[in-house]
């Protein structure tokens, strides 16, 4: 049996698969950021907090209403999406005529408030949320033991990502969206309610973050800070991919998850910075990002 750099191939397959699972979270989150950025020109710093809210809503539904994982997967994104809509109407919409930096600062402040409130209420040590019974256990794939739930995470996120891509690139609604990104005034003149389109887009981007949060709840501990560090990595993913295309955000997300997974085998000490290093290299070679259009 051959070995690659001292790692048996079975172990390598296992690690690639795990990288893909982590990449799923990067992909959904960077996709949400890309959708919001495309239309609102706002970097949604609250994204990490909204991802965390998704997980908390799932926990809340189970704890107080006895509503399980599968319904939470639908209810939590809608609920958090609605809070996003309210947020956009009340606050973010007031900033469109200003420098984009204010949007970043505002959403940063909102993230601090949300995380702080939940930390006060629930502490930081994390709340338990179990894997749904239908997905308990796992498969022995020969080269690794794959918990069923992790397999489900990859499938679910791929489906959601591709569906989003399809809606935006291939449907009429998506065409409006893309047109509004290019020229909102003109699209408005055609009788399309652009502000409402903007609001709903923000709500949808936020719902994607919450969906990722529910997916994460059973495997990572549900705590108020779970999104705070993650969002910075996702920002780097976004810089690497560039904001040019929806497909770009998805591919970059999965790809970087795999690269990070491989780093964990070959050089675990560097796995927390590898994405930032890649970002620096991409900035040197292709400042607009891998899939971005030159500014």
């Amino acid at each position: 049996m051959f070995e690659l750099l001292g790692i048996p191939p079975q172990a390598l397959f296992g690690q690639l698969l795990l990288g893909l699972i982590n990449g799923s979270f990067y992909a959904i989150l960077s996709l949400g950021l890309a959708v919001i950025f495309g239309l609102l020109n706002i970097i949604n710093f609250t994204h990490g907090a909204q991802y965390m809210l998704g997980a908390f809503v799932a926990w809340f539904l189970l704890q107080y209403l006895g509503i399980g994982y599968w319904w939470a997967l639908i209810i939590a994104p809608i609920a958090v999406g609605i809070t996003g809509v309210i947020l956009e109407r009340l606050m973010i919409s007031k900033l469109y005529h200003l420098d984009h930096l204010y949007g970043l600062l505002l959403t940063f402040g909102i993230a601090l408030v949300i995380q702080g409130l939940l930390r006060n209420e629930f502490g930081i040590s994390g709340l338990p949320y179990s894997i749904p019974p239908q997905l308990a256990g796992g498969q022995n794939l020969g080269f690794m033991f794959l918990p069923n739930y992790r397999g489900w995470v990859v499938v679910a996120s791929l489906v959601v990502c591709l569906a989003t891509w399809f809606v935006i690139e291939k449907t009429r609604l998506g065409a409006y969206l893309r047109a509004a990104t290019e020229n909102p005034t003109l699209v408005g003149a055609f009788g399309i309610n652009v502000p409402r389109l903007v609001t709903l887009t923000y709500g949808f981007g936020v719902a994607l973050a919450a969906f990722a949060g529910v997916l994460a709840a059973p495997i990572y501990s549900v705590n108020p800070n779970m999104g705070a560090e993650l969002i910075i990595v996702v920002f780097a993913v976004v810089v690497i991919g560039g904001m040019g295309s929806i497909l770009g955000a998805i591919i970059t997300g999965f790809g970087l998850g795999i690269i990070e997974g491989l780093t964990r085998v070959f050089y675990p000490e560097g796995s927390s910075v590898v994405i930032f290093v890649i970002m620096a290299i991409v900035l040197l070679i292709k400042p607009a990002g891998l899939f971005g259009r030159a500014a």
Partner: protein
Amino acid sequence: MASETTTAGLAYGKRSLVRGMPGHHIAIFIGFLVVAAVAPFLLYPVFVMKVLCFALFACALNLLLGFGGLLSFGHAAYFGSASYITAHAAKVWGLTPELAILSGTAVAAFLGVVFGSLAIRRQGIYFAMVTLAFGQMIYFFALQAEFTGGEDGIQAVPRGHLLGLLDLRADFTLYWVVLAIVFFGLLIIYRVIHSPFGQVLKAIRENEPRAVSLGYRTSQYKLAVFVLSATMAGLAGSTKALVFQLASLTDVHWTMSGEVVLMTLLGGMGTIFGPIVGATVIVAMQNYLASFGAWVTIIQGVIFVIAVLLFREGIIGVLARRLRKPL
């Protein structure tokens, strides 16, 4: 207001520092010195030194944000690495405090060159994200490197003797030294803002393509202001390390970067004295509300939201508009 500062700035840009300063700026600087001279007798001196260090830090960020139009969300990297290097130099290498501070500041300047030359390749929000990512890289480095002591940080840093003579162990002696350093830093920043260099910066901030068409190599200007801002942030971090005799992960964490942006925003971006006021308010709040724990973060978040939605000029910005004078 922008045109007002520009013309006024051009007028005294070429003159020497004090002669060219408008009267009310001289008055404010003197007022600052008087307050700073009295403060340690009324308040806990270590607390006042903390305010001073953060005032310099916020002014350094403001140089980049308010006058260069570049929002760095990773300035803790320069503040914190300088703090670590100073602590290490004073404790392990046994350098005198002034050399320790200089080496910390030099490292911050070096990092400013490396990260700055990469970051200025992107603008606006991308610039913010890139600086944030670099800041996080430094954080992970500080966490893993041996000399930083990981979570423990570098503790029990000796304050030492200034120039080998003046014993800095007493809070009061150190206080005057810190005041001198911070005041010196503030004067440099003031001078830069009102130099021809500062005028070009403002032109780039307002309309970069036009500045390019006028023949300015804008990326060189941006890099220069980035490095200068990082250096001053480093000076603040180095000084802080001696005051608290401690360099820790708090100094390099992204929440620190966020806090200093908040100080600048609250005091008034693009004003000269705003960041000092902002830093005072935030540090005082953290100090006196410390017993409320997590509420401090929530209040900071609320201030962010209010400042962005209703109060974008900041405290000093509003004041300047009322008085019709650039402050």
